[in-house]
């Protein structure tokens, strides 16, 4: 493993950016590792989550991690937040980093489908379920945005006027 070259400008920049993306507790971290002890993502084999992600960010490795896939293994279960003794809220740091990765379009193609679904129907997960619904005695069309043009327009307006809209996904 090559040595990490510590650079105070890079460290300050890394901390500033992760906080701007929503990881506001990052400087409270004392690296105790309790978060990673209970993280299902870490257990499943996504090592750069919770404490290790925070450590790397605190060492200024902000841009270096952009292609790291571990962050997308986070379940947002917040068990880390519940056990953290310092109020870091590690899940928020993970999601803050994801937001940077997303801004660089560093996410899997499967995730692109969810965004397009959300934009098109208002639902990240959508399949035409009419027959299934009728089978169990429900109307074919659920009373959601999926069949409601006005609702879809509203959601599209919100997404168009957001950083997501600027990424050109829709």
């Amino acid at each position, binding site marked *: 493993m090559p040595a990490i070259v510590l650079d105070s400008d890079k460290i300050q920049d890394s901390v500033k950016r992760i906080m701007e993306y929503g990881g506001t507790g990052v400087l409270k971290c*004392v*690296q*105790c*590792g*309790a*978060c*990673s*002890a*209970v*993280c299902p993502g*870490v*257990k499943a084999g996504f*090592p750069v989550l919770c*404490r*290790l992600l925070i450590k790397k960010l605190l060492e200024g490795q902000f841009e270096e991690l952009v292609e790291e896939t571990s962050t997308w293994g986070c379940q947002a279960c917040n*068990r880390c937040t*519940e*056990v953290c*003794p*310092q*109020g870091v809220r590690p899940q928020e740091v993970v999601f803050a980093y994801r937001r940077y990765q997303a801004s660089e379009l560093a996410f899997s193609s499967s995730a692109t489908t969810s965004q397009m679904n959300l934009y098109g129907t208002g639902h990240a997960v959508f399949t035409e379920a009419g027959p299934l619904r009728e089978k169990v005695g429900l109307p074919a069309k659920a009373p959601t945005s999926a069949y409601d043009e006005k609702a879809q327009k509203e959601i599209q307006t919100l997404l168009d006027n957001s950083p997501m809209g600027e990424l050109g996904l829709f």
Partner: protein
Amino acid sequence: MAKVGVYVCHCGSNIAGVIDVEAVRAFAEGLPDVAVARKDLFMCSDSGQEMIKQDIRDGLVDKVVVAACTPRTHEPIFRGALSAGGLNKYLFEMANIRDQDSWVHAQDPEGATRKAKLLVASAVGKAARLRPLEEKYVDVTKAALVIGGGVAGIFSALELAKMGFKTYLVEKEPSIGGVMAMLDKTFPTNDCSACILTPVMVEAGNHPNIELLTYSEVEDVEGYIGNFNVKVRRKQAYVDWARCTGCGACAEKCPSKTPDEFNMGLSNRKAAYIHFPQAVPKKAVVDMAHCKSCGGREIGTEPKISEKTGKPLLAPCEKACPADAINRTLQWDPAGEIKEIKVGTIVVATGFQVMDKGWFKEMAPDNKNVITALQMERLISATGPTGGKLLRPSDNEKPHTLTFVSCVGSRDEKHHTYCSRVCCMYMIKQARLIKEKYPDVNIYMHFIDVRSPGKDYDEYYTGARKMGINILRGKVGGLEVLPGDNLRVLAYDLDACAPVEYESDLVILATAMELPPTAKKLAQTLGLQFCGSNFFKELHPKLGPVETSTEGIFLAGCCQGPKDIPDTVSQAKGAAAAAAVPLCQGRVKIEPIISEVHTEKCSGCGICVPLCPYNAISLKPYAEKPRAIIDITQCKGCGVCTAACPSAAIVLHGYEEDQIFAQIAALTA
């Protein structure tokens, strides 16, 4: 006209790094009443003080202003210089241009310099109007009170007693000994805790100058340094201690069981019981909350008479007592008795408690095989519930895999942010003792980091590694409960950057040390303050570690903050030395900065009487009319009465009206 000398201090770069000291000096020189204005690198140095003394001797100045740091630490030094120079030491005023200026306005040197000038002008305005004050003295009661009979209280009491002072040692439990008496062995020497403590307990119990007041609590304290009047409530033991020989026959026969506090609830004791085998004093008590009043033997009632034998039917405890110390027919007062004592100084050594495991929800607190470290001490102690055999609570089987979890409630913003200081070391001690006795037991210890700063401590820790004890860095995130009451440990190895999972038979939590909730009441009684960590606050974190903000009251041991036994004993002996000083001097000085009533001006309205927070004012007849009078030993110089008096009859010396108005005028000029 006054001749004020102004001395501006650089305090190295503390002040001069921000404030233009020469500008302040030059400004002072131009102020009315100022005769000389000088500056020095350190005014508190010998040469700085000499400058003041020489100006006094030369007749240049008759009032002194030092613009420097804080009067909290340095006022006595400069007052001393005035005395040495031949001036009344109360003709002195300090302008705090460091703590209240250069330190807080470091980013604004110009503003800070402006503020320093104002502060100096204000001090000069007051100094020019100061009047000499005379100190008075009162005699002290040559006795001391030590509250708390743990290792800290025992050593404080012994030191005071050995210096020849009558010492009362108050302990809420039936025996002295405290938490140290519950410990198995002690780090880093593995001395048996009871073996080293018991002789000291016996010495305290036998010392002619020590009066043990166990099973007792301090109820009320009045008075001031040198003369405290203390009410101690001795709880009702329902046993005549003058007769009780500590044989334990009553406990043997008592049928009523309740969790044993001394064994941290791991076993039961009887309602009639002796605190622990080495108790001092070794006396029985009947815990009425758990007593069944066998055979209808309610306290204070005549016994029934047996139809068969014609003899009275007694409860098992009173029947068993060979010394006739238990007589349930007597009218024992459930409130116990109040003992009033007079002492000159007080040492508070009330100790700590460890947090209950119930607080830690991720740690399977309902599982019997999750225990606190203090429970572990009892589990491996020869006088504990298993006779020192390592057996786990759920099934009394020997555990094969043990887990130690550090920082449970310490270093945790949800509980206590501080480090409890002793957990790393006592966990290593417990692990080593177990590994020595049972080499086949697997031990895993989880630390955020190992804290071992102390004489021979780190060697003790590295020795544990050499013994094959597994030490992992990383906080345990939780426990899962497996069938058979085993536990799955969810941990993380910081060095390997990987989660760790394994099955454990017994998990020991190093729960945080904290003040018990009863400390709040004692703090109110004694006027003690709490620090940020919610322990009792010492006067100064470095220079006043055993003193408190209430004169004559001192702190020792863990009630001031978590500490190990060597530090506790050191502080206990230090507190005793400090508490002995006023007793040795035989008299205490009364600060002259207190209030005084001009009786001729007093209308006797009495407004001041209930306002005084120190109960120092009373109405006494003067020329056949009621007039306010202030007890100089009680007055603390707070000034409430002075401000409230509608007749302006009360003066607070050192803060007189013309002095304060001169300060205001200078500050608002």
